């Protein structure tokens, strides 16, 4: 699971009002090399919950020098876009779980795939 996906994921359990952001408890993290596409990164930035991204990066110990707030004029700031690219698309959680901040319910991650299947009473 990459952090771009994580930034969009919420708990969809019935009755939960604030199932976002899911806390990451990772036991295995991998860093891949992914081709840098500044246009895509630039387009995704407005969709991101920036504080959730920073929090996730910290939870994985991969925050490095990612700023706590979005920089102005990021579209033309290649250095900044590269940092965002790295954290969104290159850092991957392979094993661990995602925890709902409201209910504590855990969604396991195995081989990089989060299991979002709900039980009968949760759907």
């Amino acid at each position, binding site marked *: 699971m990459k952090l771009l996906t994580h930034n969009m994921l919420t708990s969809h359990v019935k009755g939960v009002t604030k199932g976002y952001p899911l806390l990451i408890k990772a036991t295995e993290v991998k860093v891949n090399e992914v081709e840098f596409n500044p246009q895509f990164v630039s387009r995704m930035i407005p*969709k991101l919950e920036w504080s959730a991204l920073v929090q996730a990066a910290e939870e994985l110990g991969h925050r490095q020098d990612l700023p706590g707030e979005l920089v102005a004029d990021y579209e033309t700031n290649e250095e900044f876009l590269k940092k965002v690219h790295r954290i969104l*698309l290159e850092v991957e959680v392979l094993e661990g779980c995602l925890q709902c901040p409201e209910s504590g319910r855990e969604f396991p991650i195995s081989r990089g795939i989060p299991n979002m299947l709900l039980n009968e009473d949760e759907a």
Partner: protein
Amino acid sequence: MASSCRRPEHTAPPDVVSLSSRMIEIQTQMSERAVELLNLPEGQPCFLLDVGCGSGLSGDYLSEEGHYWVGVDISNAMLDVALDREVEGDLLLGDMGQGMPFRSGTFDGCISISALQWLCNADKKSHSPPKRLFTFFSTLYSSLTRGARAVFQLYPENSEQLELITSQAMKAGFSGGMVVDYPNSSKAKKFFLCLFAGVTGVLPKGLGSETSDRAVPNQVQYSGQRCRFKNMKGKSVKKGRDWIIEKKERRRRQGR
């Protein structure tokens, strides 16, 4: 004149469906058509959702086109195949009838190849197909950006099933409808449910819906049947002259 195309569900049992090369070809073509119907802005890498992504065949096509994607599937086995195939998209194990677990406005578009009809079967006593369809469509709707489309290739069992699917999609806020390619050929006929989120759009025309004979410039005139077989059998080399001519023809017939 018999074409050697067969309906996919008659060639192989469901669990080996995506592994035969013929099936791979058909799935890729359907993915290509679905992406065409998505009408994404030219030359822009988008963030897409692939519902019922299975072993990642459609996802591979999305990656080929330069898009980034998230795939959801209910089958661990199929997702394992996708992992072994090293697909580029992120995968989620999930049940579409339980809702799409994403923040609003996440995706620029959604495709789904041969998955939607599964929602119409009540696998468990507690399942209500209309409720699951509605849960799926309403959460999908909110996960899409304004103006985004969701395109579903499906094999509808009957008109009641089509009715149920379309009505639940409309209830969830979508507009749009069915696009039928090659409606006069029982073998080549394909259904695409084309939904618009937040805007009313003009429904694209189905392929082969005007004439059964398709004139292809600079080539010998084939009968309509054989022409379709030629198209199904193999694509022209991408970006080659024939491909460009065919694509322009297609777009012209679609009124674009």
